[in-house]
């Protein structure tokens, strides 16, 4: 047995690097790459898993002054687990969001808040779906 804090089931299998602050003009666009790293030996489902029952990785932006025009995920890896071929992300990757600042957006500092939901497995076990909150400092000029 191991100490509870060291058990893999009780740790995030994925980490998000602190996002770079965004500076954007009113009415302009800004591109924000979110750097993500999956713990070695684990994988997370891609945004488009092959099986309908699998839970996709998904980044959604919930609050803030900017509008998310698009969220682009990397190309997934195809791995074989048992007899199934899965579309997964492993290691380090980026999820790129293109934001647009409304022309009526108030100038000054604000925060964009998003949620990254994922479900991780290794070859022997899977872990419950997890959601990480992502906060990006924004300056609108």
């Amino acid at each position, binding site marked *: *047995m*191991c100490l509870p*804090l*060291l*058990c*893999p*089931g*009780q*740790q*995030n299998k994925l*980490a998000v*690097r*602190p996002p*770079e602050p965004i500076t954007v003009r009113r009415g302009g666009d800004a591109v924000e790459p979110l750097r993500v*790293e999956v*713990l*070695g*030996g684990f994988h997370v489902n891609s945004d488009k898993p092959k099986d309908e*029952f*699998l*839970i996709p990785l998904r980044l959604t932006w919930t609050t803030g002054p900017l509008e998310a025009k698009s969220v682009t995920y990397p190309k997934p890896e195809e791995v074989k*687990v*048992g007899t*199934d071929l*899965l579309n997964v992300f492993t290691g380090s990757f980026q999820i790129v969001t293109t934001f647009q600042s409304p022309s009526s957006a108030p100038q000054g500092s604000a925060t964009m808040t998003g949620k990254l939901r994922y*479900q991780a*497995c290794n*070859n*022997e*076990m*899977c*872990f*419950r*779906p997890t959601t990480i909150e992502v906060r990006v400092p924004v300056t609108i000029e």
Partner: protein
Amino acid sequence: MSLKVFAILPIAAALALCSCSGSSAAANSSAAAQQASSRKAAPDFTLTDANGQTVKLSDYRGKVVLLNFWATWCGPCQIEIPWFTEFEQQFRSRGFEVVGVSMDEDGWKAIKPYLATHKINYRVLLGDETVSSLYGGLDALPTTFMIDRDGRFAFSPHIGLAGKNEYLSEIESLLGARQSASAQHRVRFVPAAVVPGAAE
């Protein structure tokens, strides 16, 4: 940019030090039958099945139970489910039952379509946080417990994908013990030769 919240390295280091039973099939393979007298009672729970019927674990007292916690999104669980279906068919007449407890957050909305498209011949219940807490948190799936006829944990839990033969061995071992511990106690002065299957 500060990397202090980027916790991969500490996590990786912690994992390297961790020897949780769920971390490898090898750990599972070391699971040994516990002496009947030292077994702990499996916590009772009340859950519902797909028909809305209330089911208690204690309803299965007198049977050997393979209690499997799983989810529709869990790949390794999908490998084990056909084995469990086979075990249910093979051993049911000898007092064995599989009970699947799904930990899907979306409940029956997620489980019913799965049951409709997969051949599962054993009872499936919808789990909740209460049962999760009773059984150690169930962060990793599949997690499977072998429960003896007296409602007690007979082996170490299988956390993660286990071997089919491991399960078979454990089931056969428990089914071979035809007498419950209490029954064994009652007949302990009877010569073993006339108590077939009493020894595990």
